[in-house]
């Protein structure tokens, strides 16, 4: 069943059709929520709440568009809201959950180094870097996903890259 058909069935009250959408996108959504929140439990909560929000908002979904970019805006909203409440209530922000998978020539040490660096960065910087480099989004797609103008995408991406360089170069070397 494709997304459009599933959404049409959901609008008609078919809960099982929504299950298809959740199962199709839950892993991708978890990857994105982890990049913003850096904490598995929070990411699961945010993704589940976002799917509930999306279900409620399906009546307003434009079938000409793809589901996931639309859903991403809802997920991001949820993540930011959760991050705000987490800042107010407790400080155990990031756990040791992995955000990256090694491919090709990367060593385990390189994975650890980049993971550690990403966790030290601002959530906003981490998010834009990962969307650009891991998901391969263009500036236009980034602007749509993040709800900001392309000029802001460019400056945010530049800031994120300089931030990553600063974190990587100040990282203490192991003896």
């Amino acid at each position, binding site marked *: 069943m494709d997304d459009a058909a599933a959404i049409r069935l959901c609008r008609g009250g078919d*809960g099982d059709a*929504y*299950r298809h959408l*959740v*199962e199709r996108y*839950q*892993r*991708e959504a*978890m*990857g994105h929520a*982890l*990049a913003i929140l850096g904490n598995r439990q929070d990411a*699961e909560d945010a*993704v*589940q*709440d976002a*799917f*509930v*929000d*999306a*279900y*409620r*908002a399906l009546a*307003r979904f*434009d079938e000409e568009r793809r589901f996931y970019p*639309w859903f991403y*805006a*809802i997920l*991001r*909203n949820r993540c930011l809201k959760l991050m705000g409440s987490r800042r107010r209530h407790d400080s155990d922000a990031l756990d040791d*959950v992995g*955000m*990256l*998978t*090694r*491919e*090709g*020539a*990367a060593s385990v040490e*390189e*994975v650890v180094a*980049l993971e550690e660096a990403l966790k030290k960065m601002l959530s906003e910087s981490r998010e834009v*870097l*990962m969307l*650009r*480099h*891991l*998901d391969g989004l263009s*500036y236009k797609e980034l602007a*749509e996903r993040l*709800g900001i103008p*392309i000029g802001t995408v*460019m*400056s945010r*991406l*530049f800031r994120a*890259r*300089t931030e990553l*360089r600063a974190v*990587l170069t100040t990282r203490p070397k192991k003896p």
Partner: protein
Amino acid sequence: MTCGEARVMAMGLADGETSGVSREEVERHLAECSACREELVTLAAIDRIWGSFTRRRPDVDLWAGVERRLASRWRRWLTALGIVLVSFRCIELFPDWELGLWTELVPLAAVVGAFIILRLNPFQISTDLQLSQEEQ
């Protein structure tokens, strides 16, 4: 063109993004500014790191949680509706009550209650603004 602008635009060109970027101006600036050239070389080296990684997509099964949350939101609405109906019935059962001080306290309580509901947002109404921004 300032160094800051040149660096951001040069990064855009390196990413293959040309809209809104004046290639000639950027190249002219870089030809004259060694600090910008060095900055861009180090950033390009950092960028190459990403080629060895993909995003981790954890194995999860969240449907049970989503289903539970969907049901619990319905329960919240039904509870709120139940409270309204019971309150209405109570008022109906006692039409001859001397209200006195209540006429002053009830509006005050309603305002405080409305404020608490807006603050706690029990029905999780939060996506509208984001959706409308995205639709623009």
